[in-house]
């Protein structure tokens, strides 16, 4: 399979997933598509030079996506304010509170540093091993573990998110 066919197949079969990964990174619909598109261009340009294997195309695109995300976040970091305003009240396990807590967690994720968020997305959404994440971020596995630990601690430290580390309460169970 040539690169043209491999890229076409990747876009057709995995494009939706790649955009979803990018959305987890950016929390922004248009930025997600833009990052994936740009990653595709970058990989296609460098692909032939590396005699790359088509079966690794998705991994290359994923790496380019993360690089692009980090690059953009770095450029914007000085002008952005954290968006992770979270709950500051305890939960009573009600459905409304559970939804609010999940929403708070989603926003707290957005407030993490780009590298911490990238690690948590690659770990928890993509479910990659730390070694793969280290390869993508070009750092040591110990650094991945450190970024993850700091990210998780930041989430735990977020006001109102203490409930997140407590047992999950199904809304219909009535357990409090």
């Amino acid at each position, binding site marked *: 399979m040539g*690169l*043209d066919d491999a*890229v*076409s197949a990747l*876009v057709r079969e995995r*494009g*939706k*997933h*790649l*955009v*979803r990964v*990018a*959305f*987890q990174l950016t929390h922004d*619909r*248009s930025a*997600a*598509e*833009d990052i*994936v*598109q*740009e*990653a*595709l*261009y*970058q*990989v*296609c*340009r*460098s*692909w*032939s*030079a*590396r*005699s790359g294997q088509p079966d690794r195309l998705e991994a*290359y695109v994923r*790496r*380019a996506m993360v*690089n692009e995300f980090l*690059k953009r976040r770095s450029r914007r970091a000085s002008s952005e304010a954290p968006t992770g305003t979270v709950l500051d009240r305890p939960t009573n396990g009600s459905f409304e509170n559970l939804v609010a807590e*999940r929403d708070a*967690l*989603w926003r707290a*994720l957005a407030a993490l540093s780009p590298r911490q968020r990238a690690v*948590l*997305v690659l*770990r*928890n*959404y993509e*479910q990659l091993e730390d*070694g793969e994440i280290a*390869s993508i971020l070009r750092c*040591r*596995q*110990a650094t991945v573990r450190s970024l993850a630990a700091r990210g*998780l601690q930041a*989430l735990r430290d977020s006001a109102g998110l203490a409930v*997140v*580390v407590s047992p*999950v309460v199904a809304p219909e169970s009535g357990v409090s």
Partner: protein
Amino acid sequence: MSRIEDQIRAVMLEHEDESPDGSALTVPPITRRLTAAPLRQVAAWSFTLLILGAVIATFSLRAGTNPHAAPGTRSPANTTTSLATLSCPPAVHQAATPWVPELPRGLNGAARLAPSAPPVRALVCAYIAPQSPAGSSGSVLLAGDLAGLAQELFWAAPLPSDPGGCNDNLEPTDGDYYLLGLTYPTGTEWVAAPGDHCQWGSNGVFSSQRSFSERVSAWYHAGHWTPPPTNTSACAATGVGRYGQQTSLVPEGAVAVSICERAADGGISSQRTVHSGFSTLIAALDQLPTHPTTNSCEEQADTVDMYNLLFSYPTGPPVRLSVQDNCLPAIENGYLQADNPTSVLPLVRNLLHPH
């Protein structure tokens, strides 16, 4: 996975349907490498492509040969050369592997990137992309002694079997391309030095680990060979590679070794250069069983002691070696790895901190 990570995944899955469906993605053009650029650079690269012919047509030869009028690319079979007058082809052929106008003639091009003997003539052909900061296209016959140039190319390390990934980000000089036309008493060869940071150097038969584009660019602008930046500190060594590393952790002939101890945060803990007393270290390294590198090691503990070693030679580039504690394989030179550092680490530490 911890409970909070379960929660994180659940939240991520809850929000994934908010993402676009990817239907707006387009397949980038791939047929010509210069067009396959990021969206915001498409205009620039398209411009590059469109005016490549114009660049070629107006390609002025500083060396005094006639400008080439015909745009387009040539295959090696169509290129005519003679021993006395290698001349720049009007265009370079952007391809998956570095392109040269012609394979080595009258030389053993497979053995090394270039012979050890200096050429009698060295012609640099520079094909500079319009947006590149590297100046303008042209050519120049290098003046002066070419012995240094010969040694630099002769000691070029070969391209590893797995060159690993390259940074996916475009560099401003990625569209540049250099050809070095070398004429010897017994033959000729071209050395390609693509500006593309993902490519490597080649004479059409032997491929080198490095592209040499930065070096050839420096010669092009200086009009003569210039020595490479002095690289004697293991704490600062980057991009070095010496022929012989593919078969030996430290090729013979080293006259000095610089040792750099890295702190856990990547900073420098200590460094020292010694010019004698390291033969035992080399002997210990020579004793180690080696295998091709995987370009990584698996950490065995949170604390990893890391030493960078740089072995210098009278001529040619130095050899960089990393020795790590608590990471397997522990020793690496870019081509080979050795697993067990037990016999080597005490020697490294003794050289770094002599009693």
